[in-house]
Structures are given as C-alpha cells and as structure tokens.
C-alpha cells in the first residue's frame, strides 16, 4: 500500500474522530474542519510521522489536541489584538456556551503540557494509564502533572 493510499484509508477510518474531537475542543465547525485539513495535510506531507506508533488513533488524538490547543492560544492572541482594535465592543456570546468559552480560555492560558493533560483528563476522561499512553510518558509523570493541574485549578477558583 502506498503511503498516500494508507493516509486516504486513515482519513476515512479516523477522520471522523479527528473532526469530532476538534469540534469538541474548539466549538467551531469551520475551525474544526481546518484542523482536520491541517492534520491530514501534515500526514500527506510527512507520512512517516506515526511510524512505530502502536495506535494511529492515539497519535491522531494527540495531533488533534495539539492543533486545537494551538488554535485556542492563537484565538487568545487574536482576541487581544481585536480588543485593541475594537475598544469598547464585546464579542457576542451565547449564555449557554459561557462555561465552555471559559474552559477554552483557561486551556489557552495553561502551559502546553498541562493543557493537554486537562483535555485528556477532564474532557476525554481518560484513565491515567490511557493518558500515559497518549502522552508517551510514565503513569508517575501523569500523576505529577495532574497534581500540578489541580493546584492551578484551585488557584483559578480561589481556593
């Protein structure tokens, strides 16, 4: 099977999970489609990226998470730029999305590794073992990261 054909197969079998995941993280259909595009374009350009990975799904989860978190961070930067240009105006926000908007803003403010952990643990509800598999680290390290995350959460909630 040629690399291109493999990725085409992967697009059909794993693309739905990538798109769903990007939607969940970004809350924006158009941006989710862009992440889908970026993830698979990157694989077309460099098919060897997931060579040696035991699970393509795990690899794509991580890739999608990184792409979406990158966008959340850029969105935060963009919001600051827009705020500078649109002084006095506010972006309309639907009340029922407030919590998710806050959550995304929080994710965008976290250090990269902790943001990933927050997504995998709180949004995906992965076990520590699964989390270690996706991050490619030990369970002990996962435990340490979760502790750090909890400290930041407590600080965020003023506890």
């Amino acid at each position, binding site marked *: 099977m040629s690399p291109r054909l493999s990725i085409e197969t992967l697009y059909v079998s*794993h693309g739905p*999970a990538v*798109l769903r995941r990007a939607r969940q993280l970004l809350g924006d259909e158009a941006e989710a*489609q862009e992440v889908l595009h970026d993830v*698979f374009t990157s694989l077309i350009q460099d098919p060897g990226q997931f060579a040696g990975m035991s699970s393509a799904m795990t690899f794509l989860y991580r890739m999608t998470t990184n792409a979406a978190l990158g966008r959340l961070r850029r969105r935060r930067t963009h919001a600051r730029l827009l705020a500078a*240009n649109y002084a006095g105006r506010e972006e309309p926000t639907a009340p029922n999305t407030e919590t998710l908007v806050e959550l995304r803003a929080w994710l965008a403010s976290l250090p990269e590794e902790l943001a990933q952990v927050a997504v995998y643990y709180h949004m*995906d509800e*992965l076990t520590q073992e699964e989390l270690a598999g996706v991050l490619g680290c030990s369970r002990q390290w996962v435990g340490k990261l979760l502790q750090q995350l909890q400290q930041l959460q407590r600080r965020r909630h003023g506890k």
Partner: protein
Amino acid sequence: MTRQRSADCPSDLRLDQWLAGELAQVERAALEAHAVGCEPCQRRRSELMDAQRSFASSAPSFAALSQSPAKAGRSWRALGPVLAAAAAVLLALGQPWRYWLERDQKNTRTKGSVAQLDWVVRRGERVVAGRPDQSVRAGDALRFSIRAHEPVYAAVIGRDGAGHVIVYYPEAAELVQVAAGTDQPLPLAIELDATPGDEQLHGVFCPRPVAVAQVKQAIERSADAPALPPGCSHQRATLHKEAP
C-alpha cells in the same frame, strides 16, 4: 470539572480505537461484552457510528483535501467544503488558485531582502492575495506568512492612520526565528476595524535576535526609513481603508 464516565465504561479513545479496528481481539471481546449490558456505552457507540456516517457524506473528500496545499491559506475557514469544491473546479480547469496567488505574490517581492512578508485578505468567503497598495474594508481579515531564503528573525508591525504603532508579531521580547521556505505561516491573524485612514504594515527581518522594542521604536520614529540594526531589512505596505 467533574468526571462523569463510569470507571467501568470505555473512554471515547477506546471506542474510537474499537470502531477503527485497532483493538486486539481480547480487548475487543472485553469491550463488546461490556457494551452488551451497558446502555450509556451502546448509546455512545451509536453516536460515534452516526458521526462516521455523517463524515462520509459531508466532510471534504480526501482528493479535495490533498489538492489544497497552500500553506498560507490552508488555515482559512474557506478551505472547508466550499473552497475545496471551488479548488476542485479550478484544478479541473488547470488553473489552481495557488498559482494565481503565487504569481500575484511574486510581484510584491522586496528587492534585495532575504525574506518577504506575504499576506492574504479574506472578505467573507473570498480570499485574495495581499499587495503593497491594497484597498481593504473594515471586517477584512488578514493572515500572514513569510517567505525566506534562509532562517530569519522576523517581526510584523502595524501603524494606523493616527500614527499608533502596534506589534502584531511576535508576542515576545525579541524577534522570533522563522524557518526558510516559501510559505511559512505566522500564528497571527488580524481583523481590520472601521477606523478610517491608511494602515501600514511593516515586515522586519534580521539575521539575529533583536529587541522588538528597538524595532518598534525605529518605526515610530521613521516609518519610511526606520533606523534598524545592521543587517536587518524592512518591507512596508500600505492598506487603503475603503469607506464602509
């Protein structure tokens, strides 16, 4: 944030691996045995399977995806199904929009510089290449990329009609290195406001890290010929804001 999934139930990752056929037979059998008696898992599995069916009918085809290569524009929302379809039509006509875009961009090259700031302007669903003297409107969104013959330290700085200078890129104390390449996208997008007057865009390229404040100050003092550190080059473009 409270975890809601029962400890016995598989995560979405596990279900996705199962649907993608990645689980070993033993793991698959265990998961299926659990799902038989678990209503939430059955429901979640159905949702994921529905999403797979929906993907097959509504997501961009792989062919469209792999034929939309422009890095500068690849992050645009227009690269969803609408533009993918448009790109497919253009490809069929033998006139890929990428070539049109590149041809247009080549005309804006800064003479003698090791690098060049490129941008595209999105207005609704339409995306056009940036030009040195360009008419724009409030609400237009600009996305930037750099083409460089060699790795270069870059900054993008804006100056509005009132002379206010804002550093768009980077968000750092020093210029950030951009790799050599034809379309190196910057993590930067701006949306133009309704303030009247021309806006200037300044691209600054240096062979080594330079303080952003130093570059900003140089442009504040003289937008036409900023006194930049030795070896740095400067590119300026003016955007003419059309009346709404």
